[in-house]
């Protein structure tokens, strides 16, 4: 049970407060409702580049990290297809510094040329380090455009190409900020050794004077239903073959989400899971297998993937995956097995409440997609999933015509 208070400032900023006096720290989480899906198809990678720029100095504060480090605070951020999320953990005594910093960069960035140049380079290095210089690094750069032809989920947060980032101009950066980085488009969560009256005072002082901006309306193109199976084969300088199967599935906000999540757990959560036992231990076709949801806010993907053992044919490997997926479609899951994955979910949720930062992030994302109170009702949704629901969803999702398969093959095996 995560107890919290919610209030909305005059400028539209939603503020959520959760008290936890077992820690001397406070987590301050600012979620902006903007992600890679909001980018222009010719200017991708922007939301992520912007995340970097947010640390390059705001209008009144030349450096973000130093004043924070000076009070024993720590911070980081991440960008996804849906959101950009910034978080600070700080000792309670110096909480006001976090408010000073976050509110100033919500107010306006410094927009220095040097900052843009440096971060462009840093992001380019990140592109190299993560996507190009690692074996299998470019896998998702290939899989997403295979599964999505229309919806912006077709590109990754790093962007379609380094050129988009290299060509980013200051005026584009400023326009992006104006549109998305405003109080009416943000959710602030403060969790830890705080009381609601304290937070109210601080937010009224630091955040309320910021002009509200406009809550932007999303009007994204809808991905048309996939009607034919899609396949793509690439050869790379990697030691082993890998297969990725992406099935279209529901949105995070759809009621079927919980059923889908439990299906992924039945398939690959823990050593007793179906794919692990059948494909890794018994049939010995893979060294690793995985099944998981993308968790996207709009209609996302159900991913099934495996790393083939040397000498195994792709045909046999793929057939074994299909056989397991057919099993869950054809035969209703038994009571005990379903109870097992429900117990695992319950355990995960309880463990996740150990961390004040985790709680803050969960409250923020729950508030974004619906209502922060959902963090407390999540478990109920999982517990009410029935074997019939599992079977129905599996049959809906695991259709060949709904699948995009990437065969990522080793050059050396050919």
């Amino acid at each position, binding site marked *: 049970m995560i107890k919290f208070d919610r209030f909305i400032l005059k400028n539209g900023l939603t503020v959520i407060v959760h008290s936890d006096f*077992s820690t*001397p*720290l406070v987590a301050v989480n600012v979620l902006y409702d903007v992600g890679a899906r909001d980018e222009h198809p010719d200017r991708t990678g922007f939301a992520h580049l912007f995340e970097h720029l947010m640390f390059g100095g705001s*209008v*009144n*504060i030349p450096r973000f*990290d*130093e*004043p924070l*480090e*000076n*009070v*024993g605070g720590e911070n980081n951020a991440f960008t996804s297809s849906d959101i950009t999320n910034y978080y600070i*953990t700080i*000792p309670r*005594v*110096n909480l*006001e*510094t976090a*408010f*000073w910093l976050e509110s*100033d960069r919500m107010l306006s960035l410094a927009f220095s040329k040097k900052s843009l140049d*440096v*971060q*462009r*380079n840093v992001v380019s*290095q990140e592109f*190299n*380090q*993560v996507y190009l*210089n*690692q*074996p299998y690094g470019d896998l998702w750069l290939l899989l997403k455009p295979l599964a999505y032809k229309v919806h912006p989920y077709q590109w990754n947060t790093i962007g379609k190409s380094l050129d988009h980032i290299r060509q980013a101009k200051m005026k584009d950066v400023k326009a992006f900020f104006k549109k998305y980085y405003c109080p009416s488009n943000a959710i602030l969560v403060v969790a830890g050794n705080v009381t609601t009256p304290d937070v109210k005072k601080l937010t009224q*002082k630091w955040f309320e*004077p910021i002009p509200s901006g406009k809550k932007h309306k999303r009007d994204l193109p809808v991905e048309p239903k996939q009607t034919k199976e899609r396949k793509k084969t690439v050869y790379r*300088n*990697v*030691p*082993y073959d890998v297969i990725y199967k992406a099935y279209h599935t529901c949105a995070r906000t759809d009621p079927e989400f919980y059923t889908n999540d439990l299906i992924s757990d039945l398939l690959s*959560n*823990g*050593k*007793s*899971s179906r794919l692990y*036992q059948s494909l*890794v*231990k018994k049939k*010995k076709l893979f*060294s*690793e297998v995985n099944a998981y949801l993308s968790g996207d806010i709009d209609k996302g993907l159900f991913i099934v993937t495996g790393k083939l053992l*040397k000498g195994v044919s792709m045909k046999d490997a793929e057939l074994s995956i299909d056989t397991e997926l057919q099993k869950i479609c054809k035969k209703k899951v038994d009571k005990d097995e379903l109870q*097992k994955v429900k*117990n*695992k979910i*319950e*355990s995960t949720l*309880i*463990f996740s409440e*150990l*961390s004040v930062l985790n709680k803050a992030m969960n409250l923020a994302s729950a508030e974004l997609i619906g209502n922060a109170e959902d963090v407390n009702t999540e478990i109920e949704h999982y517990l009410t999933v029935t074997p019939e629901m599992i079977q129905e969803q599996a049959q809906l999702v695991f259709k060949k015509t709904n699948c995009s398969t990437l065969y990522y093959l080793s050059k050396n095996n050919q």
Partner: protein
Amino acid sequence: MEILNRTKQPKIFSINNVTLIKPSDYTLDNGIKCFAFSAGTQDLIKIQFAFYAGSSHQKKALSAFSANKLLTEGTTKFSSEEIANKVDYYGSYIELMAEKDMAYVSLYTLNKHIKSTLPLLEDIIKNSIFPEHELTIFLKNQKQEFITNSEKVNFIARAKFNEFIFGSEHPYGANAILSDFDKIKSSDLKSFHKANYHANNCFIVLAGSVNQEIIKTLNCSFGGTDWKLKTVQSSIKIPAIKTNEAKNYLIKKEKAVQSSVRIGKVLFNKTTKDYHGLQVLNTLFGGYFGSRLMMNIREDKGYTYGIGSAIISLHQSGYFFITSEVGVDVCSKAIEEIYKELKKIRTEKVKLSELTTVKNYMTGSFLRSIDGPFALAERFTSIYEYGLDYEYYENLFQTIKTITPTKITELAEQYLNENSMFELVVGNKK
């Protein structure tokens, strides 16, 4: 009404003392020392067994690692699949970790299921049999992962660097090679397990919602003489450290767009007097985002996505290293800057304001590192295994608060001279 001044940082409060929560301690009937942190808001518990069973205790490559990982793959009572089903059914989790000095076996469970999950932990620690067919599957999968990792510049750099500074014969420099995966047998694991996973060779740390009932149950399961070692084995003789003669090395990887760089040397461990001072020096130099390395090589020059330095403490020794992945076209320039920063830190006295920022940052880090039952347990384990007590943290805190710029320069001069470093580049250097 006060006009809001956004240019001025709000008042800063310094943290002058920190209360370190210490564990309750118990001794099981057979002498095993047991420590409990009862804290946190949740009705769950982590039970960790710390065995002196890391790779420095093995005679044959991969023994320590494999013996640890295969604990859950079959006992005298249950098969691998049965164990997996039971552990998963209760939403519990068994964490297995083997490092250079220590090996850990931890159970994470909700309190309401502990009567069902603790017996599983007992079974895998005492009765593991390392079935040959399970070992075969494990080795095949590990071998595959090893081959994939061997393509990554930072994986190669990490392994090879330690080999160069400690020597390939020394446990801290030894790395598994491909043929090792074909040589290890179930009998090797059985004998390693017998020699190292016993009551005379471990201590236990509990964290979460701990009560007397749980300690009693723990004593019932683990406090017997059944798993005490009957005959004490002679400890393994550790060879001398043998640092590579050459001062720098390039391992070429064609087609690499980034190089992994490691620069460093053998140093000492946390029982040494200067260790705390080194921790402050290291943080200032490359241990946080505002460090000399980050500010120069990432934020100013944009040569890398990340650069840092670290001091590592091991039971028998320790080491210092700087690490980064840099574009091949800027590799030489980045390395030049690293040496510039090494020279600067020992020849130019640090400004008081910069040192103060580091001290404040480290105080916050310290607070974070003792926040919550799991963090408290980790802090404890990491000193107890060295035979140290909480004086270690009191000294660390005092050092953070009182160290001077002069002392920083002294330490840099004594320990981090750029000419005493070993340099390794994996990738390419243009």
